């Protein structure tokens, strides 16, 4: 089993490497064919040597440093605002009622559409770049923090409340351990993909718990029906309690595959 998996992985890696080599070769052929001017389509060695030269003389690092600075400051601002606000939205309905409509109205506006407006307001320079990063990262984080807090099992909250936990203890002992890992993972998504998807989360967050319970209930009902059917089947075929066909080993074998 493990030997087969290793071979398979090796084959995959081999094919992946081959694809990349092929893609590079295609590019190189087109670049060297002279169909396009070399200034527009430089050969790969040239690209590599330029990259190396830029790294060596520090230009690339400087540029990368400035970019990282802007990204990190914008991201830090977004975290500082989105996480507390999202958590408050998840805990207190009035806060949610106030900020959720605003967030869902602003979210579909691409951050780039604000660039000209921000340039007029704040002038050219770092401020605009940082604000745009902030805007782009804010809403996904806000909505994820909110839906994360909303999705904490309400039973835990009630149990902790019954045991006399105050709001602070509730937050640190129940909400953060309950959802924290997921939120931390999702911070990464902040600057990344998808505000339309967040729209989905938006609607789901409100009632995630209920939906999950419904779903489990449905599964349970279906499982009960299945058991019933199987029992009837066996009786009809005259089998005893131990059915034939796919035994336990068979099932586990199927799962493995």
């Amino acid at each position: 089993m493990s030997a087969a998996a290793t071979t398979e992985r090796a084959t995959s890696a081999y094919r992946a490497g081959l694809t990349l080599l092929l893609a590079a070769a295609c590019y190189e052929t087109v670049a060297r064919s002279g169909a396009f001017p070399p200034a527009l389509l430089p050969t790969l060695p040239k690209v590599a040597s330029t990259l190396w030269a830029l790294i060596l003389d520090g230009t690339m690092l400087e540029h990368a440093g400035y970019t990282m600075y802007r990204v990190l400051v914008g991201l830090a601002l977004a975290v500082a605002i989105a996480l507390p606000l999202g958590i408050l939205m998840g805990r207190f309905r009035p806060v949610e009622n106030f900020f959720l409509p605003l967030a869902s109205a602003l979210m579909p506006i691409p951050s780039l559409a604000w660039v000209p407006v921000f340039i007029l307001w704040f002038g050219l320079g770092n401020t605009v770049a940082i604000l745009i990063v902030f805007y782009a990262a804010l809403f996904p984080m806000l909505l994820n923090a909110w839906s994360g807090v909303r999705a904490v099992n309400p039973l835990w909250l009630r149990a902790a409340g019954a045991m006399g936990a105050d709001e602070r203890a509730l937050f640190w002992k129940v909400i953060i351990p309950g959802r924290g890992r997921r939120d931390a993972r999702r911070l990464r998504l902040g600057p990344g993909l998808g505000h339309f998807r967040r729209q989905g989360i938006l609607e789901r967050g409100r009632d995630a718990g209920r939906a999950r319970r419904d779903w489990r209930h449905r599964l349970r009902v279906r499982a009960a029906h299945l058991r019933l059917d199987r029992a009837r089947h066996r009786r009809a075929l005259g089998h005893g309690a131990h059915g034939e066909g796919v035994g336990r080993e068979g099932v586990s074998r199927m799962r493995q595959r």
Partner: protein
Amino acid sequence: MSDLAPAASPTVVAAASARRGESRWWIVARTAFPFVVVALAWEVTAHLGIFPRKLFPPLEEVAAALVRLTADGVLPHHVLDTLLRLLAGFALAAAAGVAIGFAMGRSRRAEDVFLPLVSIGAPIPGLAYAPLFLLWFGLGNMTAVLLVAFVSAFPIVFNTWTGVKAVKDIWVRSAQAMGADNRRLLHHVILPGALPYVLTGLRLGLAQAWRILVGVEMLAAVPWGLGWMIFGAREFLNTDVMLAGVAVIGAIGLALEKLVFQRLEQYTVVRWGMMS
């Protein structure tokens, strides 16, 4: 990859509110309230004259600009061009993305070939490709449409691939046991099974396309388009026009989500009970 889970139901909110016994008017008022507050704050700031009026126009000027531009036919022309570009680019991306995603999900070989290419291409922000595309395809529509297609194809490929892989093995095997050939397997089992993921991919792709389109319209010197309208208005300090453009962009984005994708989901995966 938490981006991959199928997105959720549109009716839940309404149902939940109804269950809490809130009337429709109360919900409308509650939703409108924050906007009223923000609008009031905006108005007060604008009329106090802290910022130059040219840069921070009161809302009535923005509204007037919106009405004026619509009556002129300028705004509808911009909107139409932007939507056509979006449609063309997104259609290309959807066709190519779903096809590649299906191929990757169904065939080991295709997966090995495409996965490295896609995983290298995807994390590069879309606008970083813009200068390259501008050099290769020149200024204008061609670049805008191709860049939109290229960038929005990535989430579609990823999600379709995951969706096809997530189709339960047991469904496939039972269909095969019942004698389904390849075509029917694809049509009746894999396609519906992967659809929630495919729809999520399309949704993400459309969001990506919308975002990149607005940006690329500023760069590609297209004659008409909302991004260009905002960008051009900056030259003349027409902040009211810019804000009106931003509002229209937001409205279209919201409408695409609410009117297109939620409907699509309701008629397919929600009705089939694959998503609650």
